[in-house]
């Protein structure tokens, strides 16, 4: 019979190999899914993973990789810090929405004034908005011991209603002929998160994501706080004895992930999305959870995982328009990835042994 035997230390090899194995397994089972849907699986997988990078029209899709990858990486880095310490912020989608609302709100308040200071102020407001939204579950957890998973998630639904209210009310474009949605920030130079190099997809959000990756790497490997985060996740009791203040850690982890999600929201609404509208959010906050795990909660891993996930978004859209592959199929595909990752992770911590049943 098959027995799991705990490894004394997690396997280095499998820790790196499981994400790759999970991607391969997802391709196989995703291919089967596409075949069931009546699509050619090989062609579908090629359309998703090959065409955006090296296909005929790749020059058009490559910049998209940065545009879609940046918010995912920004949010996932923040989430990974908490996940490492066993603090589960799963309401990043809400913090993303609120960051976009506060950031865009500041920008629109200045309309039509033109000044270089407006965009930095918006960035600040976006980060603060996301931070404040994440502080709600953080403070409730610290003060009352309330479960942060449920509170942060409930706040996503609250944020979605706020978004609807804002795009129909306060932030609605007064010159929009009654249509819901704010002014288009792309047409407001001081507030526009434009591409830094035209046609490259490189906007301020991409820069912020790269800085965040470096910052998180240094924090986790070279800083006491990072050590405390890792310690709390691996051995909470030992962390308490070592003098780690759990309340401070909760406030920091939730706060930073909220601020980063808020930033991602602001960069998205001021750039690629352009305006606050009822459904401008596309679920990056939830997909980022998959990115964080796929990247093994490691900054570099998250960077790669974010790019891969962005690829499935872009490839999914191509497959949708060219092959009629339903959009939901890509969502299933992404969900599958997380499944295989979690399932195969058993190999990192356990050895699989064949054993004959011992007689007592």
């Amino acid at each position, binding site marked *: 019979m098959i027995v799991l035997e705990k490894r004394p230390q997690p396997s280095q090899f499998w820790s790196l190999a499981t994400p790759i194995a999970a991607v391969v397994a997802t391709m196989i089972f995703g291919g089967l899914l596409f075949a069931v849907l009546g699509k050619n699986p090989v062609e579908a997988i090629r359309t998703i993973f090959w065409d955006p990078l090296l296909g005929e029209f790749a020059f058009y899709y490559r910049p998209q990789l940065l545009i879609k990858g940046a918010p995912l990486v920004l949010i996932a880095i923040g989430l990974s810090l908490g996940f490492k310490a066993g603090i589960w912020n799963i309401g990043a989608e809400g913090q993303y929405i609120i960051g976009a609302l506060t950031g865009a709100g500041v920008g629109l308040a200045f309309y039509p004034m033109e000044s270089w200071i407006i965009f930095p102020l918006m960035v600040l407001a976006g980060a603060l908005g996301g931070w404040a939204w994440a502080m709600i579950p953080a403070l409730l957890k610290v003060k009352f011991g*309330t479960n942060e998973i449920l509170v942060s998630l409930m706040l996503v639904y609250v944020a979605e209603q706020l978004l609807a209210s804002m795009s129909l009310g306060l932030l609605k474009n007064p010159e929009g002929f009654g249509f819901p949605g704010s002014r288009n920030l792309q047409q407001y130079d001081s507030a526009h998160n434009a591409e830094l190099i035209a046609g490259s997809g490189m906007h301020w959000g991409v820069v912020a994501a790269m800085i965040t990756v470096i910052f998180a790497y240094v924090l986790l490997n070279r800083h006491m706080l990072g050590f405390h985060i890792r310690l709390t996740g691996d051995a909470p009791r030992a962390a308490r004895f070592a003098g780690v203040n759990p309340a401070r850690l909760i406030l920091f982890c939730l706060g930073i992930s909220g601020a980063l999600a808020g930033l991602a929201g602001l960069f998205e609404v001021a750039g690629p999305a352009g305006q606050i509208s009822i459904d401008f959010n596309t679920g990056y906050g939830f997909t980022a959870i998959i990115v964080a795990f796929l990247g093994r909660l490691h900054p570099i891993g998250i960077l790669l995982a974010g790019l891969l996930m962005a690829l499935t978004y872009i490839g999914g859209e191509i497959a949708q328009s060219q092959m009629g592959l339903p959009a939901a199929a890509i969502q299933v595909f992404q969900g599958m990835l997380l499944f295989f990752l*979690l399932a195969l992770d058993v190999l990192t911590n356990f050895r699989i042994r064949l054993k004959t049943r011992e007689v007592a």
Partner: protein
Amino acid sequence: MDLSQINPVLLIASLMVAATPILLAAIGELVVERAGVLNLGVEGMMITGAICGFAVAVESGSPLFGFVAAAVGGAVLSLLFVLLTQVALANQVASGLALTLFGLGLSSLLGQGYVGLKPPPTPRLDIPVLSDLPVVGPILFSHDPVLYFGIVVVAATWALLKFTRAGLILRAVGENHDAAHALGYKVVRIRVLAILFGGACAGLGGAYISLIRVPQWTEGMTAGVGWIALALVVFASWKPWRVLLGAYLFGGLTVLQLNLQAAGVAIPVEYLAMSPYVITIVVLVILSADKSRAPAALGRVFHATR
């Protein structure tokens, strides 16, 4: 604004309907958590149940088959959670999230051909004299069978946990899996059964939304009910009858909020619509002071070394 439009009898009757999906999902999750497993995939199992039930009911023309299919669908999805947490010993929080993300995608994939269709109506109870009684009739005697089934499940769960040996074993596994294992109980087997029960209940709850409450199919139609059900289990301090009470409270809030929207209260619709979520948070805060009732082994991974 005209509050007199709100009829209290109809309000209570529709409150019970609004509460049933939360009730079914929460009672299933209660059993799962009493066995020491935290399954955060309730939302995913509910929405999968909602579409499985809807599709089968539409294709077969029978709501009964629909509900059976919903329970099966929810249980099958929870089987993935079993594989992750009981076989591969993965983190339960992450696995539950995976289940929800996967379930949301799967349901919208399955539901593509079903948008805008009407499901076959579920017959309501119609007892000649009793159902026609004023006040008592609409509240107690003229609902659909599934609503009564939900209450029966609560009663059965309560009796099982309190009075039977099986319930005692289930609680033992949830309080201290190592001790239960040492006594020779099959910890994993018991947990698997509990998770499958939870999945079936969540599936039923989802189908109740798509077949009776709404009744039609739209993507993401469970809209956080699964998460509210999770909060409800905490609210109920893991006690079956309190789940019923809590579900009716939340159901009441939802219905009241909808009635206020219809009556044209001077509060914007969006703020009324966010009220159930805000109140869930408030309730969680009030009740989270006392954690002593939580099963001791909740969320911990069991790995038998001997």
